[in-house]
């Protein structure tokens, strides 16, 4: 082991240390003081974030035999995943204390899941991908089921676990086939080998393997047709967990997808196949946008509505990846103009803030009303105008209206899609954005226009955690719009170091 290798994973090590300390400390902390565990985890995460920022320009050729890499790409994705973890922890304090049977565990499980996501983002090897994925998944199963008093949560957790285990197995099988064909577990190496083996022809075995891998990851991303678990699980889980799944889990999934696309699907010698894969991705993207948005329309429950909306946002991000594949095929070395991957990642960055902000705000209102039905949170904007304002802003951003990042990011994505020749896909995205406005407006309308229906409002404050999550989210959706240029610069920098 090299000393340089340790610096590379120093953020992860810090996080592991924090998780360890928090786990042990949890044994000695009384139930009413469990927030302390949360603070420890949070501190560890912030430390890890600081460390990550510190090693931005740290570059090394030493990796753990290619299993974990510190590249600009993994660096940026780890930043996003960690930021998602931090925001989730911050919004969890009240909820963990009130609703979770094991508040201490709740915090460090989220930290472990975040760590899993970071491992995924840095992995250059199929084993590490799988390890990271399972670390994220298994903790998520537990997190979903942690509201023990709710039968629905247990059902959701069970459903999530069943689907998750099967899709992991399918993905692993896909990896096994690739390993069998190429004799290597390294993603880059496997891609190169495949290119040599196939010589541009689709082989049934390789196609099968890629479909299996995609299936496994598609489940994490909750894109059509791997989305069926999503509404039930989101509905059953608590708000912070739902927010976490819809954001961090999704970002981690995309970290792998983009990498797989770059290394394996578009390895040298596979360019001709890449166009076919791009079409397959495009179909998945269109289906996700259509199904997600249309199915969100009749929802009456906030969580289910956001679940369907998050399916559709997975589709939007895929749109960027489709552009990435097609543009790369058209001009292999041209990364300079309207890069598909950059637009996808820029969108994910905005999505991180707007979705967590929306969840945090709606959690606040659901907590006030004691229900997550839209009709029950009616009229609550008057009770907490600031939270309502941020929530509405996040929803407006999700719908893709200016002045928030949702607009510019969608524009960038659609532009990339058009650029790569997928005009029809951009049009689907555009029409579906308009459809989405209708159901987001439904929530905003309930908050602001409708008369309050629930009489016993819980006015205990949601605490500084929720407030700061909302503040960060609002700053995020605004700043990432106004400082788009430097942000895109960073993302592009990281994409060049994929």
């Amino acid at each position, binding site marked *: 082991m090299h000393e340089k290798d340790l610096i590379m994973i120093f953020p992860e090590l810090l996080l592991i240390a924090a998780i360890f300390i928090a786990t042990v400390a949890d044994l000695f902390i009384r139930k009413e003081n469990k927030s302390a565990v949360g603070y420890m985890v949070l501190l560890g995460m912030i430390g890890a974030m600081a460390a990550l920022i510190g090693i931005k320009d740290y570059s090394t050729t030493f990796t753990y035999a290619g299993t974990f890499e510190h590249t600009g790409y993994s660096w940026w994705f780890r930043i996003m995943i960690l930021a998602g973890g931090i925001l989730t922890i911050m919004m969890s304090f009240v909820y963990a204390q009130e609703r979770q049977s094991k508040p201490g565990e709740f915090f460090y499980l989220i930290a472990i899941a975040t760590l899993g996501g970071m491992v995924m983002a840095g992995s250059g090897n199929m084993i590490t991908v799988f390890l990271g994925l399972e670390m994220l998944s298994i903790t998520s199963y537990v997190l979903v089921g942690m509201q023990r008093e709710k039968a629905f949560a247990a059902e959701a957790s069970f459903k999530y676990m069943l689907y998750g285990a099967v899709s992991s197995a399918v993905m692993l099988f896909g990896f096994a086939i690739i390993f069998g064909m190429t004799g290597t577990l390294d993603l880059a190496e496997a891609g190169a080998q495949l290119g040599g083996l196939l010589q541009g022809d689709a082989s049934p075995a390789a196609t099968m393997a890629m479909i299996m891998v995609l299936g496994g990851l598609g489940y994490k991303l909750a894109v059509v047709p791997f989305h069926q678990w999503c509404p039930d699980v989101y509905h059953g889980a608590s708000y912070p967990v739902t927010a976490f799944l819809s954001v961090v889990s999704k970002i981690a999934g995309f970290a792998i997808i983009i990498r797989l696309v770059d290394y394996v699907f578009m390895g040298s010698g596979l360019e001709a196949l890449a166009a076919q894969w791009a079409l397959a991705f495009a179909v998945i993207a269109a289906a996700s946008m259509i199904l997600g948005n249309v199915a969100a329309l009749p929802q009456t429950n906030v969580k289910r509505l956001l679940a369907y909306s998050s399916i559709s946002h997975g589709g939007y991000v895929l749109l960027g990846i489709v552009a990435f594949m097609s543009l790369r095929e058209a001009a292999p070395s041209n990364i300079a103009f309207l890069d598909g991957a950059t637009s996808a990642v820029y969108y994910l960055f905005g999505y991180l803030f707007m979705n967590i902000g929306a969840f945090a705000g709606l959690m606040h209102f659901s907590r006030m009303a004691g229900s997550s039905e839209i009709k029950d949170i009616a009229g609550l904007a008057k009770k907490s105008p600031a939270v309502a304002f941020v929530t509405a802003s996040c929803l407006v951003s999700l719908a893709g209206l200016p002045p928030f990042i949702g*607009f510019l990011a969608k524009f960038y994505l659609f532009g990339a899609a058009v650029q790569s020749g997928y005009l029809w896909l951009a049009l689907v995205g555009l029409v579906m954005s308009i459809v989405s406005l209708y159901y987001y407006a439904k929530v905003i309308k309930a908050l602001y226009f409708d008369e309050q229906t629930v009489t016993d409002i819980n006015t205990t404050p949601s605490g500084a955690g929720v407030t700061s999550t909302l503040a960060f989210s609002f700053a995020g959706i605004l700043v990432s719009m106004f400082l788009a240029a430097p942000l895109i610069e960073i993302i592009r920098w990281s994409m060049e170091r994929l």
Partner: protein
Amino acid sequence: MFVNPTELNTLSITALMVIPLIGVLIIALQGKSENTKAPHYIAAATTFTVFVLSLVMAFNYWPYAGGDNQYLFRDTWDWVPYLNFSYDVAVDGLSLPMVVLTTFLLFICSLASWNVGDKQPKLYFALFLFLETALIGVFTSVDMLLFFIFWELELIPMYFLIGIWGGARREYASTKFILYTVLASAGMFISLLAIYFLAGVGFSYESVVASGVLRELSMLVQVLLFAGFFLCFAVKLPVVPLHTWLPDAHVEAPTPVSVLLAGVLLKMGAYGLFRFNFGLFPEATQYLATTLAVLGVINIVYGAMLALAQTDMKKVIAYSSVSHMGFILLGLASLNHMAFNGGILQMFAHGTITAMMFLMVGVIYDRAHTREIAKLGGLAQQMPMASSLFLITSFAAVGVPGFNGFIAEVLTFVGAFQSFPVLTIIAALGIVLSAAYMLWLQERVFYGPRKAVWNGLKDMNGLEKFNMFACLFVVMLTGILPFLILDIINPATVQLLGLLG
């Protein structure tokens, strides 16, 4: 960060947009109490400041109007260079009158909101000021993506202003308003994307026009792109049959919001049509001019006929707006100098006159709590001041000389006659009809037998009088001295005619 191309540029458009946002911030920092008049004063002071600054800007612009550089007072900042997208705002002869109209009406409406805003005053005035930023942005953006952003931005405050403070069917009206507008703006969005990829010079209106790429496209493509923009502007204008959101929105909106809707928001459609449709696609414009003129005439006659049939005062005025927007459309479609000036002057004139009409309806509704024409009647005896001001307003709306509407209509019709004689004669029917519905409205509301129910109605108060006289002053000033505006407009129309030529 900001580049000022002219030496007189000590005023900035950005300031006009930032000052209302500062007002929003001050309102937001006002603590918890909801029963205070502080937001009212802050909003009034803010809008007044912006109004004065825009006037100063107009006076500074005047001597330079007609020079080579039409875009005086310009602020630019490279926002997202990768997308060729920049923050680029400037005023020229077309946008300056619209900016002044906006800031003026916003000031008047902040005063007219004195009682409306009592329900959740902080939110109301915050949205109100936010709307001002968005509207100024719409009229000053040179970058087309920026224009689109401001265009969509204006929806958000409007949606809430109608949806929270509106009448009984406010939710229906606000939802219809936002869906119509967003659906239509998808048309503009598609055209924008297409222009972006076809021209390849980014989103700046100036560079796209200068590149001349769009003129080399086949007529079919030009017409399709034209249609994308037109759909968006036609809904806003509104062109029959896309007008159905307007009566609902107008009737449900509170008085000041109706004023803004008719006074400023409808002008966004005409402005966009003139600037972007005509400027970007001159060939397609010539190709489609007759169609546009026919649509304009349909608007004039159909709107006026609908206005005649209404039983609700606000609806009469809402449909009269539809009719008057037809004048603008006809004027712009005529593609000649006089009609262009008339159409643009009509934008300003209608903005001020319709404001007076909605203010008057507001005055009556505040007291009688009804707008049903059949229930009203004989109000002249209880409200002599209101009665006479309403009569003057009616004259202005009908186009009696001395008011700015007259000049606008004369220019429009004389200009339009040169291009479309038959259509113009049919359109002139609209003037007759407008006299009919306005005077009939006056007669049924203010004259006739005195009704006992309305005994004890108070006449207009000081604030209402101030608002009306301020509008009347502008209407008459620009009616008697039209060159005040025409001198500013004229260079812009000449420039556009050059493009069309």
